[in-house]
């Protein structure tokens, strides 16, 4: 286990030990966020700027997030690159830091991201010094373009937001993971710990889970279960377990008789 202790991943200048990113949306009570973070050991949590109200009469959503956890504001609500850029700037001015998750969504039925606008926003915001994490449709070419545009990671979706359908995009995710030189965070659609483990076994650098944790009856225990699954999946990946095979593998080599 010695090697596991140094197994971190980096976004911008920040090193993370936990490979489970979480979210603040959909909770029955915001008071659940802090204990969920503790149980899941998540070191980064996303929050929609549209939900941040610095002038709130009661507590602001940011008050529920401990200082030790990195804030990942997102641009939920943006329909164009320009809107995403404006939201990112407002987030920075509001004291949410330099990290930004770009969400540009023009399909309210399935909440699918617009890769073109996402790429444009990434270019602008990376130049402005943001640590940009773009939420994207798994597309290898766009993934490379996002890298060139200065993204700190790519966040391809497993399946549409909130569907709990798991890795419906698995073959595409595999290609992106194989080819990417920046971290790949599988975001959206992960509905159970086994699916999170599956993404990690495939070599994803991290996963982001919100709906499955927030809408469970016990978000704290659910958070913990995802933490364990992510660790297990990561360990499996690092141990380079043999791939599943669809056919039996003869244990004695077929060409052994040929000699040297």
């Amino acid at each position, binding site marked *: 286990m010695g090697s596991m202790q140094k197994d971190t991943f980096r976004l911008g200048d920040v090193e993370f030990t936990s490979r489970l990113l979480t979210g603040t*949306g*959909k*909770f*029955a*009570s*915001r008071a659940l966020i802090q204990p969920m973070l503790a149980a899941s050991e998540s070191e980064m949590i996303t929050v*929609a*700027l*549209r*939900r*941040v*109200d610095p002038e*709130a*009469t*009661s507590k602001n959503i940011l008050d529920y997030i401990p200082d030790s956890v990195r804030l990942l504001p997102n641009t939920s*609500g*943006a*329909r164009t690159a320009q*809107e995403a850029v*404006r*939201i990112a700037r*407002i987030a920075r001015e509001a004291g949410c830091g330099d990290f930004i998750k770009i969400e540009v*969504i*023009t*399909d*309210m*039925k399935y*909440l699918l991201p617009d890769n073109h606008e996402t790429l444009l926003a990434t270019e602008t915001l990376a130049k402005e010094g943001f640590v940009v994490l773009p939420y994207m449709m798994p597309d290898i070419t766009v993934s490379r373009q996002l890298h060139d545009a200065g993204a700190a990671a790519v966040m391809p979706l497993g399946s549409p937001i*909130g*569907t*709990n359908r798991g890795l419906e995009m698995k073959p595409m995710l595999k290609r992106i993971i194989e080819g990417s030189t920046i971290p790949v965070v599988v975001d959206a659609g992960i509905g159970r710990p086994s699916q999170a483990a599956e993404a990690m076994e495939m070599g994803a650098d991290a996963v982001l889970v919100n*709906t499955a944790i*927030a*809408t469970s009856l016990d978000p704290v225990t659910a958070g913990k279960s995802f933490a364990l699954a992510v660790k297990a999946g990561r360990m499996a990946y690092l141990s380079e377990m043999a791939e599943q095979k669809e056919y039996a593998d003869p244990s004695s080599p077929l060409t052994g008789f040929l000699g040297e």
Partner: protein
Amino acid sequence: MSFIEHLDRYASFDFEGYFQSVTPADIKKTLSRDHLDSRDLLNLLSDQARPFLEEMARKASRMTHQYFGRTIGLYAPMYIADYCTNYCTYCGFSAAVDFKRTKLSLAEIEREALAIAATGIRHILVLTGEAPARTPMSYLVGAVEILKKYFSSIALEIYPMDEAEYRTLNRAGADSLTVYQEVYDREVYREVHPKGRKADYNYRLLTPERGARAGFRAINIGTLFGLGNPGSEAFFAGLHAGYLERQFPDVEISLSLPRMTKARGGIEPRNILTDTGFVQCMLAWRLFMPRLGLTVSTRESAAFRDRLIHLGATRFSAGSKTDVGGYAAKHSDATPQFEITDERSVDEVAEMIRQSGYQPVFKDWELV
């Protein structure tokens, strides 16, 4: 192709006959499907669906949690003028009703805004009657510019406009639009809108489409239950919402379920929508459109609203006043458009939502 063509396909459809032909097996089949079509919506609105309400409720509740979380968005209405040139036979603001009309000055709008914002509300719905001469574009733009200072989201429920006019208001800072067809049944529509601008059924029917093209990010529609036949009206409203969702994928679509209450000079509702019928509509719509917003106003009683939290509702108004200047700029003789039955304060409604195991969401938009 507009929604008119979709609607007119049902011009001679025998709703009563279809509703009576639905069998329990049809309902079971509908409930087993992942994606519901318009036939499924009809099935769920039929009397045969009544014994399945609990099953519908459980499914609707699960879907709502999945897509909206355990949250209820809050907003408040602000009536800024009650001048109206329409003769809607069911409305307290009808031109036929004799009462002293009022319109808030921009300074009064600001006072109202301050009072509402102090309760924590960040989403505002601005309402006027239909009297463009009294509440012209310049006045509405002025109102939006003031409200932008106090609110994160500004929705309009004003007289139907052309696309270009809506675009002006959208650019000024209004992001959402509410407009009810009132009644989809053309005959009843004609009867209850005898004259005035509103007598033009098609112009009103296409208003949500013009709003979507003008750039509004959220559109809320509905039928006023009490006028037409509840089953076919609920079907048309659902069909309309589904059409808008397909046609304008970047717009959030939601439905309201206003039920007629007593208003000054108003007629008695001829098609009472019962509580059970109300719940059945909500559930049928939710199953038909998983991501549909469902808005419930303070026309509904506190006790009833408390239950609706668990049945697919996504948005509540709270602390509402339906008279012009009702929050702070009180015009002592102002008349409410309809009677409020949930009279709890914003704090009380928010607390009830928390007690029910849901999170009240005050702010869910950012004007950029």
